């Protein structure tokens, strides 16, 4: 396996290449490395506090009670900030990189956020479920999502009442999590080349009715009891449970020829809802294409989407003498393997239209990992996450940080990540490099548990500093899998050579390394993953 191809795989399947990882991938080969990655499960969300916020029977607000009061009560009990600490620590350091990347893709498809749902322990449960099911089955993902009290609160399906059902969850389950609004061919292209509706509003209502009758798991308490009658108090410790009095028992016609018979229970209706979605002809291409877009390329060819959709549908994918997947429709191990091992993802010569803009989260981690760095997450949330419009766990709505079809100006390509890229973020990406390389990143914050800051270590490159061309080439392979295009390379080498012993004394080598790193990671060749 070539260096370039190995680099591409680390770009697609991890939070960033390192010199040792590229060597590992080359040694093992693509399918063996992917299989080995799928066997790893070392990352968990563990930080932040527990469920006491939803067991508070005192009339004093939780954060006003002396035991909990303090500047960090909201952060540690209610916010997603502790999850972001885990997220960036794991992304920059843990070895189950592919599981984390797939979970990161899933959390940008089945979206919840901390803007509308507060409760650190509940969010932790939600995102651990996505890590657990990253190579499981998409049906199980949808089922856990539908039963999650966090999703229940986010899209108003907790305590949804047949009397006047709230349509929010039903609509987004169809539109964003499973089939989309337009009828698709098996290769993900639009049937007839235009948008022909997949469902009408009556269908959304039918799903909303079928999905009524779920309440929080038992365990919550408030000083004033629980409401409405018969429902459990707000609580995020486990899956939602049925509450018969609020469940609609009228027969309902769903999609894919599936109907909910009269007098079905809420769990029975949910299984039928899942049947109708998993059997829908759109689902494989709809989900498969989004996984391609999150991992490999914004503009996959229809044939590539078709191959990935086939793996989703059959639940099985074979490559390099290995078979991935357990054979059931919706198998994510098979689907992810098909995404990563496809001919369009592999090789040394990606097409001109291949690749995707490195989204801010992957730009952060890519630079950190390449430069032997790590982050405890603190600086990448309210500072750099907000600045670059990707504060992880806080997308603005269920529509994620960016849409899958955002048009790149000029031409016909889409670039989902261009939906949060603009003149201001273009400049801030450069300033992030200044922050890491010239400001020394961030030191550990006293109030953050287990903090170690956000830093890179570039001393390992100083041995090559005397030979600017060698240094720049080494850095370029790490950042892009190959030497820079020759005109760019010449320009960067010249700038690196501008630091000399004569004009910079003892620090000339470290300055050369930083100059090289700044310019190489600023190039379009790094910022756009191929």
């Amino acid at each position: 396996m070539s260096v370039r191809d190995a680099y591409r795989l680390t770009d697609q399947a991890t939070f960033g290449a390192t010199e040792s990882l590229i060597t590992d991938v080359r040694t093992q080969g693509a399918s063996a490395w992917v299989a080995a990655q799928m066997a790893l499960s070392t990352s968990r969300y563990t930080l932040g506090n527990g469920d006491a916020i939803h067991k508070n029977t005192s009339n004093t607000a939780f954060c006003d009670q002396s035991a909990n009061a303090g500047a960090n009560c909201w952060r540690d009990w209610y916010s997603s900030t502790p999850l972001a600490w885990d997220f960036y620590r794991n992304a920059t350091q843990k070895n189950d990189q592919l599981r984390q990347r797939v979970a990161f893709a899933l959390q940008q498809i089945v979206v919840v956020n901390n803007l509308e749902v507060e409760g650190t322990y509940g969010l932790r449960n939600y995102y651990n479920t996505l890590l657990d099911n990253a190579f499981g089955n998409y049906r199980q993902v949808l089922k856990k999502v539908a039963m999650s009290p966090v999703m229940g609160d986010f899209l108003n399906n907790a305590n949804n009442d047949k009397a006047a059902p709230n349509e929010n969850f039903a609509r987004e389950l169809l539109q964003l999590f499973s089939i989309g609004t337009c009828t698709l061919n098996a290769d993900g292209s639009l049937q007839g080349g235009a948008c022909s509706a997949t469902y009408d509003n009556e269908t959304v209502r039918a799903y909303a009715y079928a999905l009524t009758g779920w309440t929080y798991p038992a365990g919550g308490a408030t000083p004033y009891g629980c409401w409405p009658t018969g429902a459990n108090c707000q609580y995020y410790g486990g899956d939602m449970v049925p509450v018969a009095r609020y469940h609609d028992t009228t027969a309902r016609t769903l999609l894919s020829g599936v109907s909910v018979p009269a007098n079905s229970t809420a769990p029975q209706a949910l299984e039928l809802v899942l049947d109708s979605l998993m059997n829908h002809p759109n689902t494989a291409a709809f989900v498969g294409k989004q996984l391609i877009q999150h991992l490999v390329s914004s503009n996959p060819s229809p044939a590539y989407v078709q191959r990935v959709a086939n793996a989703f549908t059959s639940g099985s994918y074979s490559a390099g003498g290995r078979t991935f997947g357990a054979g059931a429709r919706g198998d994510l191990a098979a689907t992810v393997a098909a995404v990563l091992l496809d001919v369009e993802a592999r090789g040394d010569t990606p097409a001109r239209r291949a690749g995707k803009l490195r989204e801010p989260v992957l730009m952060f981690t890519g630079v950190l990992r390449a430069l032997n760095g790590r982050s405890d997450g603190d600086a990448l949330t309210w500072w750099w996450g907000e600045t670059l419009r990707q504060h992880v766990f806080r997308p603005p709505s269920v529509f994620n940080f960016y849409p899958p079809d955002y048009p790149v100006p000029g031409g016909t390509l889409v670039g989902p990540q261009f939906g949060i890229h603009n003149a201001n973020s273009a400049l801030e990406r450069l300033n992030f490099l200044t922050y890491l390389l010239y400001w020394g990143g961030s030191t550990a914050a006293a109030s953050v548990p287990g903090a170690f800051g956000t830093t890179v270590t570039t001393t390992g490159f100083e041995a090559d500093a005397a030979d600017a061309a060698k240094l720049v080439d080494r850095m370029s392979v790490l950042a892009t899998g190959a030497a820079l295009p020759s005109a760019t390379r010449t320009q960067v080498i010249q700038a690196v050579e501008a630091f000399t012993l004569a004009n910079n004394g003892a620090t000339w080598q470290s300055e050369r390394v930083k100059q090289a790193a700044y310019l190489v990671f600023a190039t379009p060749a790094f910022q756009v993953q191929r």
Partner: protein
Amino acid sequence: MKGPQMNRRFTRRNWLKTSGLVGASLGAGAIGNLFAPHGIARAADYKALVCIFLYGGNDGLNTIVPTDATRYGQYSAVRKTLALPQASLIGLGTSGFGLHPALTGLAPAWQEGRLAPVFNVGPLHQPLTKAQYRAAAASSDAIPDSLFSHSDQQILWETGTSDSLTRTGWGGRATDTLATTNPVISVGGNGRFGLSSRSAPLVLPEPGSVFGAYELGTDAWRLQYAPLVARAAALRTVYAQAQDNDLADAYAAMQRDAFTMSDRLSALVKVKPGEAGSVAAIDNAFAPLISGSDVAAGLPRQLYQVAKLIAGNATVQGNRQIYFAQAGGFDTHGNQIGTDPTTGTHAALLKQVGDALGCFYSAMKALAMADAVTAFTQSDFGRTFTPNNSSGTDHAWGNQHLVIGGAVKGGLTYGTYPTLALGGPDDVGVDSWELQGRWIPTTSVDQYAATLLGWFGASDAQLDAVLPNLANFGSARRLGFL
């Protein structure tokens, strides 16, 4: 008349040239001829449009409420606990309508005849009756794509079409067709409204932010030290080079534009209230929303930035400028009211909008720019007339909107208020369990946009170029509020 292709090329070069970027790589071509009528700030002829997008779908039925006994009765009978008490509404003269009590910030503009509500506006391909809607096939062109979906209806409002695959916004296309000096300037993200065929909207950060790259700074110590000069030079050169990948080319192009525009605008963008370079008339108008040296976050801060850019037109350049701002959180599926219907989530959202727009309008008057600046709302869709069980409302279609500015023929309402009958002529529903009051629009986004762009200076032919479905509405092209 220039063809659209020529206009697009012209536009991009124009705004690059005025900021000094056009050089060998772009070539000079015939720019000289095309450039002549534009590009010079002509304050006497200056006009700006300010789009305020209310993301999530604002509940227009609780934004403007009918006050006559019959319709108020229909409203309160269906809206129930969500219904605003009649006495709480801000009366709009003899119009028969009142504003949500949180919109006190807009009352002065109404009294001055400079606020115009427009009723039941939404995406349409052509005039549409309920019978036509019910009879149409799923793939029919007569029905706008993916109704009731946030992302799709945002696209239809922002692009001024009925096709959710449309790539460019009506604001962006207007900058192409009218050959404005700058692209759409956004202080509220990358919304598709400002995308043209050649460029993304120019998204600027909020006051106090550095709109620039530190390594391209012009501090003396940077400019005097050869390795730093080499770093800055390499950075600029790298982005000027052709890439081996289409997305990388697009990335490099945006980076070049970012350098150019930040060179010109960073000082203006950074100014906060009370700082050197701030404008007293604007600071005074926004005073109720300023604490210390910060304008309240969200729409107030965005509109403060727009006011500053309008006052700084000599730096921004151009005599026609389209701005884009936004507020989020309007997807009030649950608990849209508080302990009473005049408080809670929706009231707080509207208060932010009313206060920000009211201060912005005051600032424009203080700058003697009110006649030249028209602000207007857009939003995903209206919300169901019938509340759901969560004290909220679900996705609907036609909606009420507001236009404000010194050129607005306000003190009147425009468009036709929907018939407030579940299952009635404006409701898409027919089945008993599907009668939520989702109004079929009686005025199209095309007509709304054409009214705004017509005032802005677009000819009829240019309106047809920007708004491809406008011709489907016959002679009813403009609504008369400007």
